[in-house]
């Protein structure tokens, strides 16, 4: 009984344990179902509710947008000669984030390709300038041999790649450098400007931007529209295939009014002298030639100028980077006189027959004498002779009689004292003084004595060579004003359509035909025997209307005589000359400035003559023997 009971108890226990086990197994089964249910809910959440979000992420993962840089527009002269173009070359670029220690890396690279200290310096500079670029070039324009050598040992250089890139090239080197300007790498300032203009996205792949000259001014035309390629990439960033692409649109071409051959001749004739020359087509305002000497080779800037060359350019006492034609201000000197003469005739201040007796000086009755450049004077002088012999005394009196406000109002119409609006940035406005200007500038009233020197283009008068050329062009064009411009047409890169810039005159100076003829005839006689530029006008086969000028660099005391030989070269007077030809129907107007050239007749006028000979007759100039070849000078 007891035994049986124990047995039953054991059996019951056994049964109970089995039930207990099965209960627990059932619990686990339930738990498993719940856990799998939760898992499926989670999967539902991720795969259905968050599907769009993750879908986008997956697409972003695999698709990267690669910008395709457009070809920069070309710059062509009026005869379609190429002044700026692009060519493809290989560069060796380092991506610092992927490369290890840069110094060691570059040292090792130097064993494979030629790396000069200047390359290192330039690379450092590019890095220091803190570009947002992923990579910076250590070498540009690799030879095929170097490309092959590097490719063979590429595995040794992580983060270093060879890239084919387009480079800007200026085939004429220094010629027209101040017109073309140059492109350079985009720096932080450029980037800020692009953002301000709202065009930064268009520069996504661009490394270069026009900095100065036409390259800078017409940047938005030249750059073109960046294309995009949607590339499927793997996790390593390697492109697997292209999904879609939008081709880039090349930049527009600039067709200039500039004549490259004339420009070339002008620069040749200018030689080593410092100064500026501008030739304008009066009937359109188109700039035919624009010289600022010394120039520079814009090709140096294209992939980041190295420190050595930069120092050379930047520290030169000749300031080759300054565009003298637009930024240099000089007293216009006697080249101002034809405009004074026009003012006298138009305002009725002088009649053509009115004469003065020139004692060699002008006085307001006090002890101060305004001296004529010719000791003892020119004798009896009328308006015609005042221009031909460049009589100062005549214009002292004329200026006094007209008063500064009349001078300012009339001559201001020719563009003195304001920017001409030529299509290169950085132009300065010069200075045509007035009572209001003096009050504002010096808080002083205008004295009658201040007016006297203004009459001969001295005193407060300051003008850029560009302004002189512009004023001459307006005179040659009988008062019709065209804004001077270098770019004549913009050619659409896709359609080839031409957009002509500024075809219409922007204003007119009201001039009587008689006044223009009288001044022109006087300027024609300047170029003839007895005139101040007779030597430069010798044997001309067409009629030139010209006027010489001299701008003082240092003041001369009342009783001192200016002696060219005793003055330091850099303190010598600047030589000026303005002219247009043929006088009866001008097709070219020229202004020449030769810094420290002495008299306008001796150094500036012959330059103008040679380029007019070339432009009008196709006559090649004879090669200059030496700087400032001395021709016998008639004094100014």
């Amino acid at each position, binding site marked *: 009984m007891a035994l049986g009971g124990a047995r039953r108890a054991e059996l019951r226990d056994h049964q109970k*344990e089995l039930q207990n*086990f*099965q209960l627990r197994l059932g619990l686990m*089964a339930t738990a*498993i179902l719940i856990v799998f249910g939760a*898992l499926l809910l989670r999967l539902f959440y991720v795969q*259905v509710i968050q599907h769009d979000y993750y879908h986008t992420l*997956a697409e972003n993962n*695999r698709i990267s947008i690669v910008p395709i840089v457009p070809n920069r527009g070309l710059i062509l002269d009026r005869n379609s000669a190429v002044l700026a173009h692009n060519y493809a070359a290989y560069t060796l670029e380092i991506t610092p984030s992927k490369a290890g220690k840069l110094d060691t890396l570059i040292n090792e690279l130097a064993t494979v390709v030629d790396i000069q200290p200047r390359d290192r310096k330039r690379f450092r500079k590019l890095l220091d300038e803190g570009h947002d670029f992923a990579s910076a070039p250590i070498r540009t324009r690799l030879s095929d041999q170097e490309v092959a050598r590097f490719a063979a040992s590429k595995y040794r250089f992580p983060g270093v790649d060879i890239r084919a890139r387009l480079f800007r090239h200026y085939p004429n080197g220094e010629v027209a450098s101040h017109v073309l300007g140059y492109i350079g790498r985009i720096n932080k300032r450029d980037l800020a400007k692009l953002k301000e203009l709202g065009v930064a996205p268009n520069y996504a792949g661009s490394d270069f931007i026009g900095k100065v000259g036409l390259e800078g001014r017409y940047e938005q035309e030249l750059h073109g529209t960046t294309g995009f390629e949607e590339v499927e990439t*793997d996790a390593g960033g390697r492109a697997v295939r292209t999904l879609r692409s939008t081709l880039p649109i090349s930049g527009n071409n600039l067709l200039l009014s500039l004549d490259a051959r004339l420009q070339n001749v002008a620069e040749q004739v200018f030689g080593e002298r410092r100064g500026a020359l501008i030739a304008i087509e009066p009937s359109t305002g188109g700039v035919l030639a624009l010289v600022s000497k010394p120039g520079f080779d814009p090709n140096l800037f294209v992939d980041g100028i190295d420190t050595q060359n930069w120092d050379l350019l930047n520290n030169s006492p000749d300031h080759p980077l300054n565009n003298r034609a637009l930024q240099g201000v000089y007293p216009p000197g006697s080249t101002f006189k034809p405009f004074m003469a026009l003012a006298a005739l138009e305002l009725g201040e002088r009649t053509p027959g009115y004469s003065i007796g020139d004692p060699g000086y002008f006085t307001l009755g006090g002890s101060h004498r305004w001296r004529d450049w010719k000791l003892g004077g020119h004798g009896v002088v009328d308006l015609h002779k005042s221009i031909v012999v460049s009589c100062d005394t005549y214009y002292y009196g004329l200026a006094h009689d007209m008063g500064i406000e009349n001078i300012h109002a009339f001559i201001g119409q020719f563009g003195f004292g304001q920017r001409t609006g030529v299509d290169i940035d950085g132009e300065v406005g010069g200075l045509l003084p007035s009572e209001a200007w003096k009050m504002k500038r010096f808080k002083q009233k205008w004295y009658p004595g201040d007016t006297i020197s203004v009459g001969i283009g001295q005193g407060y008068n300051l003008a850029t060579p560009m302004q002189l050329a512009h004023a001459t062009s307006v005179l040659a064009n009988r008062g019709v004003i065209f804004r001077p411009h270098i770019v004549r047409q913009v050619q659409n890169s896709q359609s080839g359509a031409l957009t002509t810039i500024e075809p219409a005159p922007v204003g007119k100076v009201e001039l009587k035909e008689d006044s223009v003829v009288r001044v022109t005839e006087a300027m024609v006689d300047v170029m003839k025997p007895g005139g101040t530029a007779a030597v430069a006008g010798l044997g001309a086969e067409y009629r030139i209307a010209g006027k010489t000028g001299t701008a003082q660099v240092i003041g001369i005391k009342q009783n001192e005589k200016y002696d060219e030989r005793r003055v330091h070269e850099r303190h010598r007077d600047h030589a000026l000359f303005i002219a247009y030809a043929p006088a009866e129907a001008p097709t070219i107007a020229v202004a020449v400035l030769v810094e420290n050239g002495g008299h306008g007749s001796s150094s500036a006028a012959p330059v103008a003559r040679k380029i007019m000979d070339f432009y009008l007759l196709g006559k090649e100039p004879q090669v200059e023997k030496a700087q400032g070849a001395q021709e016998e000078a008639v004094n100014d």
Partner: protein
Amino acid sequence: MIDRILVYLGRHVDSYLLAAIGALLVVGLITLYSASGESFARVGNQVANIGVALLVMWLAANVSPHYIQRLAMPVYVIGLVLLLAVMFFGEITNGAQRWLDLGITRIQPSELMKIGVPLALAWYFDRYEAILKLRDFVIAGIMMAVPVLLIAEQPDLGTSLLVAAAGFFVIFLAGLSWKIVTGIVLTALGCLPVLWSLMHDYQRQRVLTLLDPSQDPLGAGYHTIQAAIALGSGGLFGKGWLNGTQAHLDFLPERTTDFIFAVFSEEFGLFGNIVLVTLFLFVIGRGLFISFNASTLFTRLLAGAITLTFFTYVIVNMGMVSGVLPVVGVPLPLVSYGGTSLVSILFGLGILMSIQTHKRLVQS
């Protein structure tokens, strides 16, 4: 003749289990072909692995549970010795000492303990079946704890937790009192801070990453984020076989092994996942059924533990890929590429078959 051979060969094979296993293996091969970048070599390797593993399963299925029961303790002891050997002579790879070089081949003794611990515990409880007392549970706990601690020391936290889980399932099914179960769960929760302080940096990193993968998107969080992108972009119906961009463009790491579920999800979507989960549920359900009907305590406990461990692998892997559990190196059973895990899984399932079929023979 052939029929008779097939019948003979299939005597101890459970056809329900075999069907589900076969389906999962085929899913694995299909996914592997895509995940490996359409590599026949990889698929061929895996087919060979499957062949070996199925042979192991067949052998296990043909061994009577009595023999398995007799081998339980020797396997456990050998495993323990090998673990100790690893501790003193093991190779160090990736900062962990897990492998033992036997001259001919390298083995990972912790893998053996995944089956060794439940075997030994089931054997112990079966032996003292009639008079199970609290003391027995304490002894069983120690038998489980020693290898778990040794494995954790290597360090291999993932495997040690899986071994602990296998042991715990046996102890729980053997009838550990609810009070103590509750106590253990609470203690475990209370020990989390202690565990945290014992963790290695990379382990802590994984846990932190789970909480906020975006904190380290290219480092520790990369796996989790890319897997979530694969799953999420797969959507309801998936991108289609061989069309998974996350997998084919190399964004998914470990995509043939631990993260193969992400590849499957990306290409077959939520519907594919439901099918996959159903197949796993079928295997687990059949395992629980076998355990439920097993004739001895040893076979009951062993079958239950094998099934629950299998479930644990599945849920840990899927939970990891879908971003609810930390990243631990656990492959998806029967689907992930790799021979070792396949052999040990199918060995376990072979034992299940043995338990089921031998009982039937005994009954008949």
